[in-house]
């Protein structure tokens, strides 16, 4: 097994565990960023350099920053989680984990060669067979934009009234 691969997998998993157990929102965010970076490494190892870059730029860079802004606006929030409420989800997660392992282990564990897939290939695929998906995604983003703008406008009114 590839050592780098294993190491980044462990980092990703460990970081995610930290994300879901932290009390402080900012701490959780930072751990999530670490997890995302680890995932990006895994993607790189799989020959998907383009999306690894995209993961870092957009996911870790833009989306997480949005979260940071919101946390700034809201202020510190303490989400107290008592250990007892972990029981149910833990059991559920365990069951799902067992099922997952079973499904995965029933396949062959033979390693295959990894082929590098260039951004060019991705671009050709996007603007070729997946053109409609691109258009739809554009719609989606437009909708998100308009929605966020509209909600933001009401927010501005509300916040404005408080005389910030």
């Amino acid at each position, binding site marked *: 097994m590839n050592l780098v691969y294993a190491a980044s997998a462990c980092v990703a998993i460990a970081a995610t565990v930290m994300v879901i157990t932290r009390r402080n929102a900012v701490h959780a965010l930072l751990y999530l960023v670490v997890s995302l970076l680890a995932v990006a490494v895994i993607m790189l190892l799989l020959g998907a350099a383009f999306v690894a870059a995209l993961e870092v730029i957009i996911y870790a860079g833009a989306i997480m920053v949005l979260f940071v802004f919101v946390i700034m606006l809201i202020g510190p929030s303490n989400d107290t989680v008592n250990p007892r409420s972990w029981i*149910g*989800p833990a059991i*559920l997660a365990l*069951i*799902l984990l067992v*099922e997952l392992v*079973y*499904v995965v282990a029933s396949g062959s564990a033979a390693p295959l060669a990894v082929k590098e897939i260039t951004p060019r290939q991705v671009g050709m695929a996007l603007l070729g067979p997946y053109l409609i998906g691109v258009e739809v995604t554009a719609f989606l983003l437009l909708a998100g934009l308009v929605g966020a703008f509209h909600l933001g406008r009401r927010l501005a009114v509300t916040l404005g009234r408080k005389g910030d």
Partner: protein
Amino acid sequence: MSWMWLIPALPLLGFLVLAVLGRSMHWAVVAAVGTGSVGLSMLAAVAAVWGFWVSPPAGGSVTLTLWDWVRAGSFSPSVSLTLDALSAVMILVVTVIGFLIHLYSVRFMAGEEGYSRFFAYMNLFVGSMLLLVLAGNLLLLYLGWEGVGLCSYLLIGFWYSDPENGRSARKAFIVTRIGDVALVIGLFLIATNLGSLDIQEVARKATASWAPGSAIAVAAAALILGGAVGKSAQLPLHTWLPDAMAGPSPVSALIHAATMVTAGVYLIARTHALFVLAPDVMTATAIIGLAGVLVAGFSALAQTNIKRVLAYSTMSQLGYMFLALGVGAWSGAIFHLVTHAFFKSLLFLAAGVVILAMNHEHDIFAMGGLARKTPYTFWTFLLGALALTALPPTTAGFASKELILSRVWESGPGGRILWVLGVLGVFVTSVYTFRLLFTVFGGEPRGAPAHGSGRGAHGGGHGPKPAAHGSAAGKEGLAAGRDGRQAGVVMGVPLAILAVLCIVGGFLDLPRTLGGSPFITRFLETSLPAGTRAGEMPLSTDSILQIVSEAASLLGIPVGWLVSRRAIRVVTQTGGPAARPAFVRFFSGGMGFDWLYERAIVRPFVWLWNVNKRDAADRISDGVGGLSMLLSRAFRWTQNGRVRWYAAGVAVGAALVIAAAVLL
């Protein structure tokens, strides 16, 4: 006579009109519709009987088939009306007496808030009764039978706001129901055995195919007897009649004296062909009748309520009719039915006037001296009483009772004993009748005088007062005291007509010893065989028997006077009817029948009902409800509005689906 269907149809039409529109009609219109429909029916009946008499149809009857009712294979009864001598007599009785009583009720029920309801029910009753007597087949007869039973229930419980009246009505309905069940089973037996319920066909087929005394004949006749016993309040199904006096006096007069209770007598006379085939059942009928005469007679001796005396008297006279039927004196029974209708309804109507005059007082020991206060009522009541006690020479009751008793004497080995007991019954009848007469009308006034009797201005034609409320048990009308003299034309005329009929009715069939005019017997011969012929007995024996029974009824007058004096003394000096000796109280309670039925039948049944109140079927139906509550509570858990809960649901579902996909 193709318009014969009008006779029952007119009162039924009156019922429909009053039931739908009655509440919004002015009381005079209600009275006109209610009385007018019966009056028109009476005219139609008179015309029909006149036509029947003037030109008698071949075979003794004319049938009008209206339509096919049921067609089930070979069993196809039709709605058909038959007019023969027997039904001619019956429709005259029902319509004439019905009309007179409706006329009386116009004034009697004035001011009641159920005025239109009353006339609607009465019209329905008259229509059903006419259907019953005109029916050409037993199924239609049973329809009329049920109709009159229903109207009896509705009218007994007319003042339904008092639960006691409802209880009496239910008691009447349930007890007669027992008889009705027997009758229905009898009808089933006849229908399956003979294939038809048409009366003439049944008679023909039964005489042809059933051997006398065979099991089927005995069964059919006995079941029909059971039905008649229930409806005519004979032992053992008689306990409802005294309580039925909770209804208004016109109801008691029409239903529980003249017509409905005689439906049993009519039924047996109608199906006499079956009874002839079962001599044991006829003997049973006679014995039941005689037992009824004596039980009711002795019970009447001890009553304190004026209407209950008359109720037991009705039961007693019906016993005489059953006795006559039992010995085969069919026309004697019917003649007594006719005369009894005259004098008993007269007595009830006069009693109604008395009750009103005494301001709704029913206790005879609270009345007295009314002979001077209400003379008109007194004289009419007296004539009715004379007819009831069968005093000679020309009263109607005398003629009919003589007809019965002479036939009883001749009727075979047990006939002598039956005759002796019958004469005993005559004596007892006389005693209780004159006890009643002397207590109510004689002596000094004991009760509170009527409020309005001093005012003479209560002429006829007054409109009813607005309806008040709050009636005590068995209340008679709402307006304050009117007595016969001041009741005006509307209540007085029916009393007068009935009184005249009481006197003159005897001429319909005078006994041989007084000249003999067997008018009714000959008229009925076309449909009822004459039975033992009176001519077989020597005239001298006949005369002696008559003198004995006349003496018995005359003897009752002084005895009745003595009993009345003593009873009044006991009641007024020792404080009320409860102070009377125990045997008197025993008779007053109807010789213990109510007590017996209460303990032997009603209480076990109620106990059983209580035990079974939460039985399996109840539990199952409760369980369904409980189960749905349980499920609802369970499902309420899944809708608690918490996002994480729903997410957990999704996760669980996913786990299950994956497991299913993996394992299956």
